């Protein structure tokens, strides 16, 4: 059975110039221990999906319809206190910028111990030992000495390791990692991702990895979801999606990764920009930029459909499409 199921999720933002639909009909699931990569341009709704899952959408954003199920139980409509017990314990979260996600006025040890004792039935002493263990696991050298240090005494990469320890320390079944390495130096990104991947595998933790770095996805994820303008445009196993993307948008995205095994004259690029949420065109949202656009794309909005090895929201794979 799936660990997490997202069914027809729709997130709206009421604004004074009308309601914006930030996520529209988003459905996917994640199996236990699986890593789902979520990619797309900024504003495509990747982070919003993560925030909806952990139940921390920024007001006035709200889930307008759809369901989120964890192990078959709905969690999108839980009262705050019940959802709070799930956050950290069942679903952990990692944010983008380690410089701002740690409370500057408390030692990392206090923040770890606090999180552990909130969720697990252990005393302060035992929690502290566990905290030191986690710091060692995420690769903080001399963890026993450094546990009483303040966040500002660590470098950015080390802080993100602390953040990962905080997200994992109550042993959640799912981690929502929102661009966990974007704010780090390029040289450290690979180390941190590798560490995160190893830890997740050892602990059997499933992960939703939000990023715009296709390299990270190709290396880490089992499956990939491509998002565009608040919808999933294609979803499928990582190998197939990277090598043989079906949706023209995914093809464009994958075309922008420089291949290592052959020379190319120039990288592909997608012309134009993603539409703003307030100005999504009729039909397929990608139609103004799509090289293979045809008349149906301008009228009807495509749902995800079988496109061979992946599922893509594209009329090219419906019956009666131009050859």
């Amino acid at each position, binding site marked *: 059975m799936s660990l997490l199921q997202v069914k027809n999720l729709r997130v709206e933002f009421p604004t004074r110039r009308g309601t914006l639909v930030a996520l529209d009909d988003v459905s996917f699931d994640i199996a236990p221990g699986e890593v789902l990569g979520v990619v797309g341009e900024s504003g495509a709704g990747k982070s919003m999906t993560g925030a909806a899952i952990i139940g921390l959408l920024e007001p006035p954003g709200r889930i307008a319809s759809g369901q989120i199920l964890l192990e078959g139980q709905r969690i999108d409509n839980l009262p705050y206190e019940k959802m709070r017990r799930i956050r950290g314990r069942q679903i952990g979260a990692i944010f983008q910028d380690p410089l*701002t996600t740690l*409370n500057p006025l408390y030692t990392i040890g206090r923040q770890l111990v606090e999180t552990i004792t*909130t969720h697990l039935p252990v005393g302060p002493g035992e929690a502290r030992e566990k905290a030191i263990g986690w710091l060692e696991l995420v690769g903080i050298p001399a963890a026993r000495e450094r546990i009483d240090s303040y966040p500002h005494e660590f470098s950015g990469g080390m802080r993100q390791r602390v953040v990962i320890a905080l997200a994992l320390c109550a042993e959640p079944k799912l981690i929502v990692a929102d661009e966990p390495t974007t704010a780090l130096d390029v040289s450290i990104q690979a180390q941190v991702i590798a560490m995160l991947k190893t830890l997740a595998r050892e602990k059997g933790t499933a992960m939703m990895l939000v990023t715009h770095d296709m390299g990270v996805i190709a290396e880490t994820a089992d499956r990939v979801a491509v998002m565009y303008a608040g919808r999933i445009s294609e979803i499928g196993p990582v190998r197939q999606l990277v090598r043989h993307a079906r949706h023209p948008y995914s093809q464009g995205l994958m075309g922008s990764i420089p291949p290592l095994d052959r020379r190319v004259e120039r990288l592909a690029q997608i012309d134009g920009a993603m539409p703003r949420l307030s100005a999504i065109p009729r039909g397929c949202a990608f139609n103004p930029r799509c090289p293979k656009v045809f008349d149906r794309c301008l009228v009807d909005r495509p749902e995800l459909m079988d496109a061979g090895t992946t599922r893509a929201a594209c009329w090219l794979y419906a019956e009666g499409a131009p050859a």
Partner: protein
Amino acid sequence: MFSFIVSRILQALPVMFVVSLISFAMFAYVGDPVSIMLGQDFTEAQRIALVHDLGLDEPFFVQFAKFIGNALQGEFGLSYRLSRPVAELIAERAPATLELAICAAMISLCVGVPMGIYTGLFRHSWLSRFLLTFSLIGVSLPTFLIGILLILVFSVWLGWLPSFGRGDVVQIGWWSSGFLTLSGLKAMILPAITLGLLQLTLIMRLVRSEMMEVLRTDYIKFARARGLPNRSIYFGHALKNTLVPVITIAGLQLGSIIAFAIVTETVFQWPGMGLLFIQSVGAADIPVMAAYLMLIAVVFVTINLVVDLLYYAVDPRLRVGRGRGH
């Protein structure tokens, strides 16, 4: 720690220097102390003798150095108006002002901070809206008008509380305290509320906006994402971060309580330094004004120092110069 204090004191020196220069300039060049002190009938020899006695015929820097030297010993000469040593006048009045200021500061902090936290956390409750409206009226009400309204209601109409003076005071050494008698305490209520109300509203609005600011930060979001209970998020994580900027501004606000005491003391005929000062302004009594200016400067510099020390206690980033583990 020690070097931290020393560096802060060194930073305060230029401020004190400028203030003493202004004080001295007022003292030496504004008005004509000689003719004021001599009165109507005097001979030229008497005038020259007095000028010499006061040291007014000496060069500027000598006079300034003497002024500073005297000021350090608490010596500011005679009041033109009352012909008594300024230091004596101020020492006599200081306890009244300080007791009033302490009470007002307690009121504004003990009520203002909780109200700020509440309105910051529960922004849309009706009580928050009410408190915010109240605070807006609070900043729009001049201090003296608050005093007059309180007198009208509680002294004139209801007759519950006295409207002027300190009531009975008990003399403890040179300090006269109104805290030890019932009439002294009753007399304190209205002036303290009057003086504290403006600061209370300012502190409440400050705490509220800082609280809202902190609640938007990533570390609070991350604390929520870890499923920490609200109590620990609000009072552990958010409140402590709110304190850092609040300490500074609250410190400055408390300093200005001493200054605003001028108005409150006038309304309630409170026998403190502020009343002395305003009477001196009206009578152009320069020595008292100069001394008061210096005194206020000392108070502010001290408050700034205390604020810095509190900062030091709250924020670990100041304690360790820079990160070690890179």
